[in-house]
């Protein structure tokens, strides 16, 4: 059984620069794939190839049973796409634009469907204003509206929440979650919290290559800070505490920092990301330290992101 979207060995070169190098992955219905990577890593180029805007130099994109090179129109019919920066015809109104896209996509009962989408995306108030006069947030929403108008099986969203305020970001994420069940969604972002909020899987891409692929939890596990214990204690003899903590079985490294007021913060990094909270807790009780704070770091995606995307050596 093939996944809805199958991408194999995709490669794209611009002159002597390799923008995308041998990228392969698959996305199925019900999955929300987060595409992460620094600017210029090849996220947008990959999306442009999936949506049939750019032809790959080698490799294949198959959506449903249609190959984007042999039958681009069928693939485009299955996909809803929000290009980077949400480019739109600025002299048209959102109403005209949706009508235009709906005409080309031959959406059945178009007027009704436009009504539904406009309601979902909250566009009523600007429906008759030229797009050029709209705020960035509204433009982005018009871009999303045209992408979901034909209720596509596959949604490709290039930075859907870029430039939105926190409320609007939340709305878009809620919308994506609501649509996730019966669609395959690929979205790119460099906001890592977004991956936690909406994605079932994340791919990190750097210099045109996939450097990490897994669920957000899997990726967090790769963080050096995963399961690190942060302990703040008052008036403990520093040298002794440091020695005891770093002597713990399962402790790999220790950082300490004076916070002021006689409080010291220790960060204990575990070996292989194994949980050491119980050991730390036992030690604290035995010594009778006054604990100000004790918590486990899950390890942020941003550390993983930095670790896997920074140029090696």
């Amino acid at each position, binding site marked *: 059984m093939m996944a809805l979207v199958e991408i194999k060995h995709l490669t794209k070169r611009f002159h002597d620069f390799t923008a995308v190098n041998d990228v392969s992955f698959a996305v199925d219905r019900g999955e929300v794939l987060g595409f992460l990577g620094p600017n210029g890593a090849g996220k947008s180029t990959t999306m442009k190839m999936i949506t049939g805007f750019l032809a790959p130099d080698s490799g294949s994109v198959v959506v449903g049973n249609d190959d984007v090179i042999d039958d681009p*129109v069928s693939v485009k019919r299955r*996909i809803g*796409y929000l*290009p980077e920066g949400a480019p*739109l015809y600025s002299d048209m109104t959102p109403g005209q634009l949706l009508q235009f*896209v709906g005409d*080309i996509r031959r959406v059945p009962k178009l007027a009704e469907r436009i009504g539904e989408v406009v309601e979902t995306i909250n566009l009523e108030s600007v429906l008759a204003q030229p797009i050029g006069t709209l705020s960035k947030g509204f433009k982005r929403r018009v871009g999303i509206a045209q992408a979901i108008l034909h209720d596509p099986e596959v949604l490709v969203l290039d930075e859907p929440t870029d430039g939105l305020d926190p409320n609007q970001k939340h709305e878009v994420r809620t919308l994506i979650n609501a649509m996730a069940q019966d669609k395959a969604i690929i979205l790119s972002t460099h906001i890592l919290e977004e991956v936690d909020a909406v994605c079932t899987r994340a791919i990190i891409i750097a210099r045109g290559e996939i450097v990490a692929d897994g669920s957000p939890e899997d990726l967090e596990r790769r963080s050096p800070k995963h399961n690190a214990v942060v302990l703040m204690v008052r008036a403990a003899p520093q040298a002794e505490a440091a020695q005891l903590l770093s002597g713990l079985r399962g402790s790999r490294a220790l950082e300490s920092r004076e916070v002021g007021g006689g409080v010291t913060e220790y960060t204990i990094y575990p070996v292989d990301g194994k949980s050491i909270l119980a050991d730390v807790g036992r030690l604290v009780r035995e010594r009778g330290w006054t604990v100000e704070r004790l918590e486990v770091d899950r390890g942020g995606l941003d550390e993983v992101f930095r670790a896997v995307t920074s140029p090696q050596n």
Partner: protein
Amino acid sequence: MAKVWAIGKRELTGYFSTPIAYVFIIIFLFLSGIFAFYLGDFFGRGQADLVTFFNFHPWLYVFLIPALTMRLWAEERRGGTIELLLTLPVTMMEAVVGKFLATWIFTGIALALTFPMWLTVNYLGEPDNGVIAASYLGSFLMAGAFIAIGSCISALTRNQVIAFVVSLVVCLIFVLSGFPLVLDFFAGWAPEVIVTTISSFSFLTHFDGMSKGVVDLRDIVYFVTLIGFWLYANVILIELKKADL
């Protein structure tokens, strides 16, 4: 076909949603009138025909049509909307033809609005209306060829001014190659074959016949082929250039 029309309709509405449409139509009507009456001495000739009116059409088109076509693709590329358009389920040919037809229809509207000239000449005398109809057909076909050139060149650049200037020059070459001055220059030393070849590429040569009322299939084929050629080149150019920012 529905898709071609959807693209064409968007483009045509685009002309009318900005002042471009009105400015173009007014200037076209104004200049074609001025040229016919003053430069062409419409009244002084004492002839009931529109020869002086149609004679200036190639020259009007050389300057005005690039102004219409310069935005067709350059604007899409500059605004990034080309990515929106070409990821809709349309073929490149449908997109190119849709835009071309919109501009052609628009020019047709401007041309149709010169009907008072026709009425005037019928009021003043008894012209050969067949010749006038053939001239209108010729003028419209020639406009199509100019538009196809302009559309293709607009795909070359993101800059509308460059698109305008280059289209103007290319259109001018296609007109001038039949202009007596240019042909005389070649006739002085070049063999007859070359002179005929150069002149056979000119819009003037093919338009002349039609504006005299002779609807020759060869002239129609010439303009239609030219339109087809430039539109095909347009498709290829977009394919090549769409990735460049």
